[in-house]
């Protein structure tokens, strides 16, 4: 038995829409099997993983809080991936954005002004963009692989944050805990709804997604991104510069990751700690692919992946499985998304070996 692929004459519109749903369904089936292997009742486990977190108002707010950074980063990454620039260091840009934005409330904590918050957000974007500028420069001018450099910089950013909160930025009144002083009232991103904790970071995420959707669909820049991503050569004939595109896409995604970082710190945590992200920068890669690199799809995908974080916590409490299940679900989901995307471009046929041999004989 063998699997053969047959190229479709046209991209299948049906599977373009269906494939993320098939992938999600397969993830749930496999997740159920996994829970059964762990000795849990699959139905109850899946219920507490995927449904329970949606049943109460406060947990919906938690969902929005977790979805905000995922959507913001994922939207930025979609521009990168579409233009064939593989920025996988968003986790580092997230951290550097958070650090740059925290300069005001941590170092200049005396300064109170309504300007503090907007400046923090701008600084966060600049911090993320500058950190993304390193792999951009190295790729555009030194021909260095951006996958490896951007990833290595994640470790550097994590260690830098660790040093800051244990060293120079440690809270002098903090009983020696490795954390900065808590942010003042001017430095906190306010809640956007009266019903709960969701902060304005979620609104930023939706706005960013809509803007990028508009850019990709209606502007020359969006066209340039698509063309250069599909064929650098064709892009050159059209007068587009792939070097400029490296800079644009990396700085853009870095800035959005930085904005996500400072929004998370100022909205949800309200101080810096050694670890400020449960891997948002990496999970956002899954978000980008599950959303099929489409900003509107990424909004939905961000909510789904945020659900896996909450589901892991809920399942740990209610049925006693490890919250590591979250990462397994996320990994499985990306695998199934990538497999199902094959259906968009190819027909899959399972061929029995004898029949295949006959066919090649005919061909000779």
């Amino acid at each position: 038995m063998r699997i053969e692929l047959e190229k479709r004459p046209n991209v299948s519109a049906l599977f373009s829409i269906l494939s993320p749903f098939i992938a999600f369904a397969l993830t749930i089936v496999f997740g159920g099997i996994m829970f059964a292997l762990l000795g849990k009742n699959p139905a109850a486990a899946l219920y507490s993983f995927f449904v329970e977190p949606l049943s109460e108002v406060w947990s919906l707010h938690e969902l929005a809080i977790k979805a905000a950074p995922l959507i913001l980063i994922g939207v930025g990454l979609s521009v990168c991936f579409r233009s064939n620039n593989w920025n996988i260091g968003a986790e580092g840009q997230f951290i550097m954005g958070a650090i740059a934005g925290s300069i005001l409330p941590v170092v200049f904590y005396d300064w109170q002004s309504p300007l503090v918050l907007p400046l923090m957000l701008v600084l966060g974007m600049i911090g993320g963009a500058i950190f993304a500028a390193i792999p951009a420069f190295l790729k555009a001018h030194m021909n260095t692989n951006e996958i490896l450099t951007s990833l290595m910089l994640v470790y550097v950013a994590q260690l830098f944050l660790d040093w800051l909160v244990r060293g120079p930025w440690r809270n002098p009144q903090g009983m020696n805990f490795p954390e900065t002083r808590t942010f003042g009232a001017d430095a906190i991103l306010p809640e956007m709804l009266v019903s709960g904790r969701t902060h304005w970071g979620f609104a930023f995420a939706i706005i960013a997604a809509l803007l990028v959707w508009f850019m990709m669909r209606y502007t020359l820049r969006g066209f340039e991104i698509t063309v250069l991503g599909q064929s650098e050569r064709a892009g050159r004939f059209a007068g587009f510069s792939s070097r400029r595109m490296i800079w644009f896409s990396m700085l853009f995604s870095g800035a959005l990751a930085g904005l996500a970082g400072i929004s998370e710190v100022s909205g949800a945590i309200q101080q810096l700690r050694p670890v400020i992200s449960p891997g948002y920068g990496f999970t956002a890669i899954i978000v980008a692919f599950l959303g099929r690199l489409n900003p509107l799809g990424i909004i939905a995908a961000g909510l789904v992946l945020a659900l896996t974080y909450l589901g892991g916590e809920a399942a740990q409490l209610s049925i006693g499985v490890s919250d590591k299940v979250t990462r397994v679900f996320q990994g499985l989901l990306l695998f199934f998304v990538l497999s199902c995307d094959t259906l968009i471009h190819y027909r899959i046929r399972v061929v029995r070996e004898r029949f295949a041999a006959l066919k090649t004989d005919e061909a000779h």
Partner: protein
Amino acid sequence: MGIVEAILLSVITAATPLVLAAAGELVAERSGVLNLGVEGMMIMGAVCAFAATQLSGSPYIGVLAGIAAGALFSLLFGFLTLTLVANQVATGLALTLLGLGVSGMLGESFLGMQGIKLQPIAVPLLSQVPFIGPLLFRQDAIFYLSIAIVAGIHWFLFRTRSGLKLRAVGDSHGSAHALGVDVIRTRYLAVLFGGACAGLAGAQLSLVYTPQWVENMSAGRGWIALALVVFASWRPWRVVAGGYLFGAVSISQLHAQAFGIGIPSQFLSSLPYMATIVVLILISHNRRMTLINTPASLGKPFVPDR
């Protein structure tokens, strides 16, 4: 044993997993497959090796389990990228994310357990040679294997017919296919070999380097191994040179900390990652040289026409 020997020994221990993982990835890349999942296969090897050792009591069973785990995990990558022609970069990332998740879950019940170390084997006579003996001939089985594997890869790639075919597949899969080489089969085997090597590298981490299970204990070594393949310009023996260079960098930070040099430990810990970036810049800034060395079909999907 003098201080120099002690330092060199620790360099060798730190370098061995890098050499192994990079050597395996080199074979996969020579066949035209870019598997970014080295980190994931490595961590799966580490957790399975540790678990099997605990359950069976024998670290050698552990080594075999590590190899098997890495190989099995790489098959997943092979199925997606070779059979379903999924994007290699994204699939490699998926493999790493999944590996980190699954290993965290599998390893949870082994956290904090006292590990069983793979004991060194002294080579008769040679281990008595002063200086060199204790360094190179009183080592564990995985170290000997790492050298044998690199030598074997060199011999295979440049001295055998199958090696020539594998390189042909990596340089031009269309031509190789036209000449009757089974491109997909060759690539499956290369990916499988890469996975086995990464799994063995992982086993070294949890059985020799630090004989215990710690979550995310591969700490980016899989990614450094990927950089090493570029550094080595896809030549097996250069992987050894590069691996030992990186081993030395990562050990230097430990010794600098021990000597109490007044640099924050976080900066020293980031040295291997910074060194990787610097080395990548030095190696790749010459675009022509990079183009000459890189397997021409690297990362390109292949669908046989029928």
